[in-house]
């Protein structure tokens, strides 16, 4: 196993007017290919911030983030957007589905940026939705689905492009116990069966148990 993600001496601050808010202090961490890492820590400790840096939706103030050999901290905005489309699958706490699109259309969204034909897209979307157990609900709109089902659509959207890494920010944070455990089982399966490298932020110790490795953040430091 080699490190697919390498975070090297990364610091991140936000600025509120002239006031610097340090969030991450010189953090280094490596994640091996095929790993399932849980990031835990109190609210405000910088978990989301670290995840965003690894996923390329935010940039470090200092340091480098190297994912699958690419130093993404050096990419420009549009190169970064292309990189994200190819390399990362995103799962959010509040699912973030587009309400006016059906489950099928939501999952198809990332594929619209590829060169796939309509029938190829259809095949891939159906595969992804079947894998998350929603083969029967493809033409439902988000508001016609339960929270757990919505999150499964979001997972299908995250895996439909077959990305290298999956990032999940409190994927079970808004779900009841049963739905949460279904989602976690699904993520475990994606890791073990489909060899996806997963980084998951969570507050929930039960959720973290499913991961292969747990790291803690405390006020911007890894402990």
């Amino acid at each position, binding site marked *: 196993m080699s490190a697919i993600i390498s975070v090297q001496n990364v610091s991140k601050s936000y600025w509120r007017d002239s006031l610097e808010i340090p969030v991450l202090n010189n953090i280094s961490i490596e994640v091996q290919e095929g790993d399932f890492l849980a990031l835990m820590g109190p609210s405000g400790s910088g978990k989301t911030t670290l995840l965003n840096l690894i996923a390329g939706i*935010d940039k470090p103030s200092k340091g480098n983030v190297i994912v699958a050999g690419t130093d993404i901290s050096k990419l420009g905005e*549009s190169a970064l957007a292309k990189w*994200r*489309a190819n390399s990362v699958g995103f799962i959010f706490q509040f699912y*973030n589905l*587009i309400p*006016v699109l059906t489950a099928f259309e939501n999952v198809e969204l990332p594929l619209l940026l590829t060169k796939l034909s309509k029938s190829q897209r259809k095949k891939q979307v159906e595969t992804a939705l079947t894998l998350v157990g929603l083969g029967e609900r493809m033409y439902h709109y988000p508001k016609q689905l339960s929270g757990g089902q919505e999150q499964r659509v979001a997972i299908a959207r995250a895996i439909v492009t077959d990305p290298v890494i999956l990032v999940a920010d409190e994927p079970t944070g808004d779900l009841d116990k049963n739905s949460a455990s279904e989602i976690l089982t699904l993520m475990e399966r994606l890791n073990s069966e489909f060899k996806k490298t997963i980084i998951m932020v969570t507050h929930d110790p039960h959720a973290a148990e499913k991961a292969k490795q747990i790291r803690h953040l405390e006020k911007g430091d890894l402990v």
Partner: protein
Amino acid sequence: MKVLKLILKNALRHKLRTTLTILGISIAVIAFVLLRTVVTAWYAGVEASAANRLIVRQAVSFIFPLPYAYRDKIAAIPGVETVSWANWFQGVYIDKNQFFARLAVDAETIFNVYPEFLITQSELESFKAERNSCILGQDIAKQYNLKVGDVMTIEGDIYPGKWDFVIRGIYRPRDKTTDATQMLFHWAYVDERMRQEQPIRAGDVGWYIVKIKDPNQSALISQQIDALFKNSRAETKTETERAFQQGFVQSTSAIITSMNVLSFVIIGIILLVLGNTMIMSARERTREFAVFKTLGFSTYHLTGLIGGESLLISALGGGLGLFLAFPIIQGFESFIPKGFFPIFQVEPITVFFGVSAALLIGIIAAVFPIQKALRTSIVEGFRFVG
């Protein structure tokens, strides 16, 4: 493909808001088209005027008459082809709301100086032969359902008394800028009766219409005419019909200017209505835009999504407005007195302006929300709470 579907679905997200916005735009477009049509109607008189006709009027004011004796003196000026004349008769036909031009004219020459009034030879001859006859514009004949042989009774005001005129012809307009709403009868007939009833007003001419051979000489001949009557009891002011019409339009220019301004104010209102809608919907979708960007969608896609929705709404509003404008303007026309505007119709240029304005507004209204959406970083987008 997909993007169009998404634009449509986005536009229909708040059906009531979108509907109200579309209605707002269409009402504004109707108002715009109506105002522009009124303004163009006002200017149509200037457009229709001929360059080889001079109007000679009393220098002080239009309401003062000129002596009939001027006729031969004007006719003697080299370059003058025909001298005709007319008086504003006014009077009341049926009731005071029936407004159209009623003029006492020189029967012998009037159709020579106004070749755009088309009339048959036999109608013209019977008109000339009968002193109390009249010729009616086609539009007026149609409006009041009048035909040759009918008698029109006018209650005189400037020329008191009851006047009966028998219709001996209906003139047709040569083209769409020709005024087909006039009633023309014998100046000689009116003058004869005035000679008996108010001798002091006998021989009064409202204005002379001078047809010249060469339009390039209009300035020179105008000067010569005015010089002829300089220091006389009734000095004249001669100008081309076009200048004369422009003068009339200018005297009402405050109204026209305000209408012009108003039509652009309306465009501003549409812009605000649509801009407001677009800003609201883009704001509500801040998170979704962050999702799109996260998934790798670019500036170009977001611009298309927001701009497309804005254009769709403005095009629907503009289209609906134009579609409704035609019947509404027709309805409006039936409320203004016939002949008040000789030509009242929606010009193609007005339609063109209406459409371009609507589309331009669709683009402008999207600028701010697009800018906002592009500037908001993904992280800010996800942290945004509406």
